[in-house]
């Protein structure tokens, strides 16, 4: 993984989020407060605006800078969570490098663990972790098994899709949707949706 690929991913993610504006907005309007799309769009724009500065950095330093930028630009619940993800990922990469799939998977797992400890949530609480935790587990397993990139990416996309769908019938116990009780049933979690969009986007980039 190099910095150039991180920048391409950031731009692709921005485009993918914009393409899903309507569905993401509708989801947070239904079981949240309607700002999740705007928050994510603001974060993506802030990162993409850093392009030139990031281009001069090593991958781990670039991820750290992205984390700090997201921390000061997204806000809401998703801001500190996503920022924690990138900050932890950067730290692990700095320690272990970013040269192979197992290294990247370990960094990803560290990012997900940081989200878990920041938000004190786990699988089954109708949050973005219902996408990220299964994706991370699968990623670690396949990367360590030496699975070839195309298959790996296809599997991760499947996990992300499935994780996202799983939130539909959950009652939330974390985040704003928790205030709705049973009324949250039947709606996909907006953070799970954006996580799925981002993972799919990166997988599509990585497998081509």
């Amino acid at each position, binding site marked *: 993984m190099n910095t150039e690929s991180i920048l391409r991913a950031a731009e692709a993610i921005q485009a993918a989020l914009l393409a899903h504006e309507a569905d993401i*907005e509708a989801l947070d*309007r239904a079981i*949240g*407060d*309607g*700002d999740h799309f*705007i*928050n994510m769009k*603001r974060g993506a724009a802030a990162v993409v605006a850093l392009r030139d500065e990031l281009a001069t950095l090593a991958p781990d330093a670039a991820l750290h800078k992205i984390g700090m930028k997201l*921390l*000061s*630009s*997204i*806000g*809401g*619940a*998703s*801001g*500190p*969570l996503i*920022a*924690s993800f990138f900050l932890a990922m950067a730290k692990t990469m700095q320690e272990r490098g970013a040269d192979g799939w197992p290294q990247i998977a370990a960094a990803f797992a560290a990012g997900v663990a940081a989200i878990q400890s*920041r*938000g004190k949530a786990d699988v089954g609480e109708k949050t973005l972790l219902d996408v990220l935790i299964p994706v991370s587990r699968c990623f670690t397993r396949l990367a360590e098994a030496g699975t070839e990139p195309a298959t790996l990416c296809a599997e991760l996309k499947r996990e992300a899709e499935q994780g996202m769908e799983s939130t539909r019938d959950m009652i*939330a*116990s*974390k*985040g*704003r949707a*928790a*205030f*709705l*009780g049973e*009324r949250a049933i039947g709606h996909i979690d907006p953070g799970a949706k954006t996580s799925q969009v981002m993972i799919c986007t990166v997988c599509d980039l990585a497998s081509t």
Partner: protein
Amino acid sequence: MKKFINAVDDVLVESLSGFAAAHADLVRLQLDPHYLCRAQKAQNKVAILSGGGSGHEPLHGGFVGYGMLDAACPGHVFTSPTPDQMLAAAEAVEAGRGVLFIVKNYAGDVMNFEMAAELLPFDHATVLTSDDVAVEDSTYTTGRRGVAGTLIVEKVVGSLAETGADLAACQALGEKVNRRTASMGVALSSCTVPAAGRPTFDIGPDELEMGVGIHGEPGRRREALRPADALVGDLLAALLEDLKPQPDSRALLLVNGFGGTPLMELYLLYHAAARWLAERGVAVERSLVGNYVTSLDMAGASLTLCLLDDEIRAHWDAPVHTPALRWGR
């Protein structure tokens, strides 16, 4: 969307700038990162800092000033502010006695303030407000939300800080007030977030949302519209069930509008609430009626009860001089 705005992206900064200009004697606005602080930095006291998404005006910026907050960090509309804002604000107002964060209990606010606290080079503590009894099963979840009761915590703790009390005492009083305070709200309409451009939820002409928060989110239940007396009875019953006041309790009653409800209706609610409470032996010793903790243009209101003791009442009565709350000086 019908609002007095220019470009959607400029709403927050234009509104903050107008607020700071209209109250230049009391507050100062700093941009990038955004915060509001007192025009004159207070010395030798715990710095009281709050913040949260915008759209709840006058909360929190309207409560910056003598006897209440030292600084407030406004996020985007209904979006928690970010840690860099709290750090910059704390840097500006800390006066050697530490910083107390007053934070409404939402995942976003809690986590952003938490990350700021981890980076803060000062003594600090946090009071989480969680007065909204509409949230059930709170042991297994995120917990209860902080809503209009936050104003009472800010007023009472702000007064104590002014006396030179230390950080631990301020935190302890804040937690006591929060424990003795309960709120519940009902909405007649949704609100429209400027960046979204349309109402957050649709609602019929004979419906209401019971148990709403202050972010335009739907409440616990969609119910049929009914007379004010019946609504007030339902809300207050939930508050008393939560607070379980002793016989002959004394209370502060806050009738809070959500931004689109006129005073005429809020005072009518006050009338209904005071009567209902009197019949149940709760004496309303202090009151506040108005649009204080709002949801943009939402039509609706919340009732908040705070069980008074002599300490809380004395700090409620103490002088305050902020853009939105002023008495005694």
